[in-house]
């Protein structure tokens, strides 16, 4: 028996804390999207052992913070405590967006995972962070190529923009959605992070939370200049040119000598 769960994407997007409008100075800050995906407890986020501004997070809460590029000891503690039950080190690089998720692994054990948000381009990036079987990602009645069996702890990005009809999550290798997300609108300058978490207590199916983040400014350089002396130039070096000149002179000498004698 298949139970269908219709998740209004607009409603889901409203339920999360909005991404900070400006990404700050991308030259020295990174972005961290924090996901509370472990049902059953209210969580405080610890940064370097101390309680941060992010307290009292409920299952399904998503928060976006900009952090100066640095290495952080992140922890998840029950609300009001500074004793982390989950911990991980997050090296935040400038201009990079990360997901830090507390989620259930396939054994149902809570874990804290660090992922890269692939926001080079607009699109949808699903994350399977639920204690649930492998799934397929479906769009417009077909399995999205490469997303036929996404396992717990896996993610990848679909580069796409505009209206994506009939987005859903199905059983592995199935193009029949079990969780329907409906038509999804992907703005040209945003990446939608789609987190499947849980299931919540008393539920059979994972919950889905969506967080939009801005597409990062292009991080690639224009060129790679790495030499200024010409020592390895593949153009003919001076020595070779000199030898060739010498050769030309040697070839011409007999003729010139002959003319002189006349």
């Amino acid at each position, binding site marked *: 028996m298949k139970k269908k769960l219709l998740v209004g994407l607009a409603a889901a997007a409203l339920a999360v804390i909005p991404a900070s409008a400006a990404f700050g100075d991308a*030259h020295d800050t990174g972005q961290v999207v924090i996901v509370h995906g472990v049902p059953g407890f209210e969580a405080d986020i610890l940064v370097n052992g101390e309680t941060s501004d992010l307290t009292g997070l409920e299952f399904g809460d998503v928060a976006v913070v900009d952090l100066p590029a640095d290495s952080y000891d992140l922890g998840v503690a029950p609300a009001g405590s500074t004793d982390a039950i989950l911990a991980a080190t997050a*090296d935040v*690089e*400038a*201009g*990079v967006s*990360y997901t830090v998720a507390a989620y259930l692994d396939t054994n149902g054990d809570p874990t804290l*995972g*660090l*992922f*890269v948000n*692939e926001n*080079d*381009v607009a*699109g949808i990036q699903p994350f399977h962070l639920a204690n649930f079987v492998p799934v397929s990602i479906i*769009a*417009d009645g077909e399995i*999205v*190529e*490469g997303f036929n069996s*996404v396992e717990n*702890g*896996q993610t*990848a*990005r*679909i*580069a*796409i923009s505009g209206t*994506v009809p009939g987005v859903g999550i199905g059983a592995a290798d199935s193009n029949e959605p079990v969780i329907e997300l409906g038509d999804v609108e992907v703005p040209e300058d945003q990446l939608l992070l789609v987190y499947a978490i849980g299931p919540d207590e008393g539920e059979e199916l994972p919950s889905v939370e969506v967080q939009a983040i801005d597409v990062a400014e292009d*991080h*690639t*350089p*224009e*060129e*790679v*200049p*790495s*030499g*200024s*002396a*010409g*020592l*390895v*130039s*593949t*153009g*003919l070096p001076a020595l*070779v040119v000199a*030898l*060739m000149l*010498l*050769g*030309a002179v*040697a*070839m*011409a*000498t*007999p003729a010139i*000598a002959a003319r002189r*004698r006349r």
Partner: protein
Amino acid sequence: MDRRTSIASFAVGAALLLGAPATWYALQPADTVGDLEVLGLPEATPAEDPGVADTPITGLDAPPAPPTDDLLDPEAARDAAADTTDAASPATSLEYATTPLSGALPDIARPARISVPRIGVDAPIDPVGREPDGAMEIPHDIRRIGWYEPGGVRPGRNGTAVLSGHVDSRSQGRGAFYDLRRLDVDDEVTITHADGDVSTWRVVARTSYGKAEIPIADIFTRSGAPRLALITCGGAFDASTRSYQENVVVYAVPAGS
């Protein structure tokens, strides 16, 4: 000048004129070694920048199974399959590109030192970014190698970690990557990470791109299997701009793969 001397002079001259450049060219390493196509990389003269297309647009391959009716009629089935391979024709085919599935970020520290025994390189690595003009920053000290930090691809994480060093400098002479153009397939590269871990890499290709043709977007990518790109300058030297006209790029993959 007697006749014999004349002939000898002419012969030596001809030998020099033709032999000097021929010998010099013969001593130069080949422009490309290894198979770039296997890496999914363009050859030295790449096509246009594929932009976001990390993998081919869907519908170009792996057409879905034809409807059961068509199974009875092989020709109709072939036609149906042919239809779906044309990305433009079916109304139901979405255009998108995908990146490979990956898991949580492996715990890998920043690169701190690079060693390439075959060309005698053992150099410290500095994280670098972009110059104001948009070019990749290269450590001023030509004995040091720059690791491109924006994008955060550490050697061993998904995507291509880019390490660049000077081939030479007008004031300092030979740079750490002076002999990069002599690396060959299966040569070894080791990276010592900031936490002391060592990762070993195997050269799979070397090539040379014109500065205008270098596939920047393919090289500086955060997607795909872990890869190293070692870059320096090469090709003909333009003395007026004090710059080389090409980039020598060596690609390496984890030694176990």
